[in-house]
C-alpha cells in the first residue's frame, strides 16, 4: 500500500511538473491522454463497477458539450454554470435509458444496443436543431489565447492541461473512495451476479440507476471541456459511435473495473497511435485509416494475451498487492 502510494505521488508530481519540460505538441498529446483517461474512468463506473455495458457514451459527451456550449454561444453564460446544466441533463438522459432498460429487463447486449440507439437518434436530432447550428456546427467565440480567463474557461493550452489533470485526479480519487464504499460493494455484487445481489437485500434497480446517472454526469464534464477546448461542435462528429468506442478502448485495454486501467489504457493508446502516425509520416507512408487498423491490432493482442487488461498484469509484475 505504501509503495503504491509513493508511486502515485511521484506520478502526480511528474504530471504537475510536466508542462515545464514539454513543448506545445507534447502538451496537447498529454491533454488528450488525460481527456481519455477521465472519460474512460467515467465509463468505468458504469461498466467496470456496476457491469452495465454502454456503447453510447458519446451521447453524454455530446449533450454536455452542446448544453454548456449553447449557454455560452447564445447567452454568454460561462461553463461554470453550464457545467451544472450539462450534468443534470446527462444524468436525466442516463436515468431515462436506465429506467427503460432496467424496468423492462433489458440487459447485457440488448442494453448496449439501447445505449447505441439513444446516441444515434440524438445525433440525428441535433442535425435538425437549427438553434444549435444543425449539421453546420456550432462555433464558440475564441478569445485571446494567452490570458487565463478562468471565469469563462478561456486561456492558453497550459490551462486546459491543468484542468484535465485536475479532473482526472478528482475522478481517480472519487472512484477510489466509491469502490471502498457501500455503493462500490453493491455495484460489484450486481456486476458479478445480479440475482445473488438481490437475494442479499440490494435493490438492484436503484443501484444500477445510480451508477448510470453518476457515469453520465461525469462524462458530461468531458463534453463541457471538449466544447471549450476545441470550440467547434458538429453532431456528426461528437455523437458518432466511433467516439463511444474510442472512449471505452482506454479502460478495456488498461483493465475494466480497475482504478488505474483507464489512465494507463488512455496513455498507451494515445502514445502508440500518435507514435505510429509520426513514424509513418517520417517514412512517407500516408495510408488512410492506418490508425484504426493499428487500434484493432493492439486491441486484439491485449484481448488475446491480457484478457483482463494491461494494468492487472503490470500490477502483479510491479509487486503491488492489496
Amino acid at each position, binding site marked *: 500500500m505504501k509503495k503504491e502510494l509513493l508511486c502515485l505521488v511521484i506520478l502526480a508530481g511528474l504530471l504537475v511538473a510536466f508542462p515545464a519540460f514539454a513543448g506545445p505538441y507534447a502538451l496537447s498529446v498529454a491533454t488528450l491522454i488525460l481527456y481519455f483517461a477521465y472519460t474512460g474512468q467515467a465509463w468505468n463506473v458504469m461498466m467496470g463497477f456496476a457491469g452495465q455495458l454502454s456503447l453510447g457514451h458519446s451521447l453524454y459527451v455530446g449533450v454536455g458539450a452542446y448544453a454548456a456550449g449553447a449557454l455560452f454561444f447564445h447567452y454568454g453564460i460561462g461553463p461554470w454554470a453550464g457545467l451544472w446544466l450539462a450534468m443534470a441533463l446527462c444524468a436525466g438522459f442516463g436515468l431515462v435509458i436506465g429506467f427503460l432498460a432496467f424496468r423492462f429487463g433489458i440487459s447485457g447486449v440488448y442494453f448496449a444496443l439501447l445505449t447505441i440507439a439513444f446516441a444515434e437518434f440524438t445525433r440525428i436530432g441535433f442535425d435538425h436543431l437549427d438553434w444549435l447550428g444543425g449539421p453546420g456546427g456550432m462555433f464558440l467565440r475564441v478569445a485571446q489565447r494567452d490570458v487565463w480567463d478562468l471565469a469563462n474557461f478561456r486561456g492558453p493550452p497550459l490551462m486546459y492541461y491543468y484542468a484535465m489533470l485536475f479532473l482526472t485526479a478528482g475522478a481517480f480519487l472519487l472512484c477510489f473512495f466509491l469502490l471502498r464504499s457501500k455503493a462500490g*460493494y453493491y455495484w*460489484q455484487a450486481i456486476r*458479478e451476479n445480479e440475482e*445473488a*445481489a438481490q*437475494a*442479499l437485500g*440490494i435493490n*438492484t434497480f436503484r443501484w444500477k440507476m445510480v451508477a448510470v446517472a453518476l457515469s453520465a454526469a461525469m462524462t458530461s464534464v468531458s463534453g463541457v471541456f471538449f466544447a471549450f477546448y476545441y470550440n467547434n461542435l458538429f453532431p456528426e462528429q461528437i455523437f458518432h459511435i466511433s467516439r463511444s468506442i474510442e472512449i471505452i478502448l482506454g479502460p478495456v485495454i488498461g483493465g475494466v473495473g480497475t482504478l488505474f486501467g483507464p489512465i494507463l489504457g488512455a496513455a498507451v493508446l494515445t502514445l502508440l497511435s500518435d507514435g505510429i502516425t509520426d513514424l509513418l509520416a517520417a517514412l512517407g507512408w500516408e495510408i488512410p485509416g492506418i490508425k484504426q487498423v493499428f487500434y484493432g491490432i493492439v486491441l486484439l493482442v491485449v484481448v488475446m494475451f491480457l484478457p483482463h487488461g494491461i494494468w492487472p498484469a503490470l500490477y502483479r509484475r510491479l509487486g503491488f498487492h492489496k
Partner: protein
Amino acid sequence: MTLLQVRSVSKSFRGLQAVRDASFEVPQGSINGLIGPNGAGKTTIFNMVAGVYAPDSGEILFDGKQIHGFRPDQVCAAGIGRTFQLVKPFAGLSVLDNVIVGALHKERTVAGARAHASSILKKLNLDAKAHLPASSLTLPDRKRLEVARALATRPRLLLLDEVMAGLRPTECDQMVQVFRDINRAEGLTILLIEHVMRAVMALARHIGVLHHGEVIARGTPEEVVRHPAVLECYLGEEADV
C-alpha cells in the same frame, strides 16, 4: 409462535401445475425440512417464499405480515436469508468481500460490515480463505460461502436450498453441526429443502413431504418415514404377494 406461514399456495407455469394448494408452517426457532422427489415443487415453493415468483393464489405470511409478491430484496429486508441450489458466488471478489456485501444489509459502515463478515467466516471455518478469490473455492466451500453470505444479512429465517447436495458424508455432517450450533446459540429459524435424507433426518424436527406439488404428509422425521403416502411416492406401492 409461527414465523412463516404458507397458506394454500398454488403456482403453475404454462399449464404445468408446479405447486397445488400447498400449506405448511414454520414455528419460530425450529428447524424444518421440506422433502420430496424430483419435480415435486420444492424449489418453486422456495422461490415463492424468497420473492423470485409471486404465487398465483394463496398467501405467504412472515411474522404475521404478508410477503407474497415481494421482490427478493424486500424479502431479505423482511428478515429472510436464502442460499441458491446452484451456488452463485461473486466470483471476482474475495471470500471476505462476498460476505461483506451481505453484512452491509444491516451494518451502516464498511468497517462494521467487515468485522461482522469476519466473525461469520470464522464460524463457518472459512476464515483461512478470506482473502482468496471466491472463484478459487471448491464446491463444499462455495456452499459454505452461500450460507455465510446469507447469514451476514442477519436473517430471522434462513432458507437453505439443497445446501448438502454434492457434499461428502463427513462434509455433510460438519454442515449439520454448523446449523445446529447456529440454531441453538442464536435461535435462528431454518427451513431446508433437501434431497439428502441423512441431513434432513439429523436436523429437522418437523418435515413436510411434497409430491406432484401437493403436501402429502407432515410430521416428525419418524412419523414421516413411516407414512404410507410417503413410502408410496418414494418407493412405489406395496405389492400384494
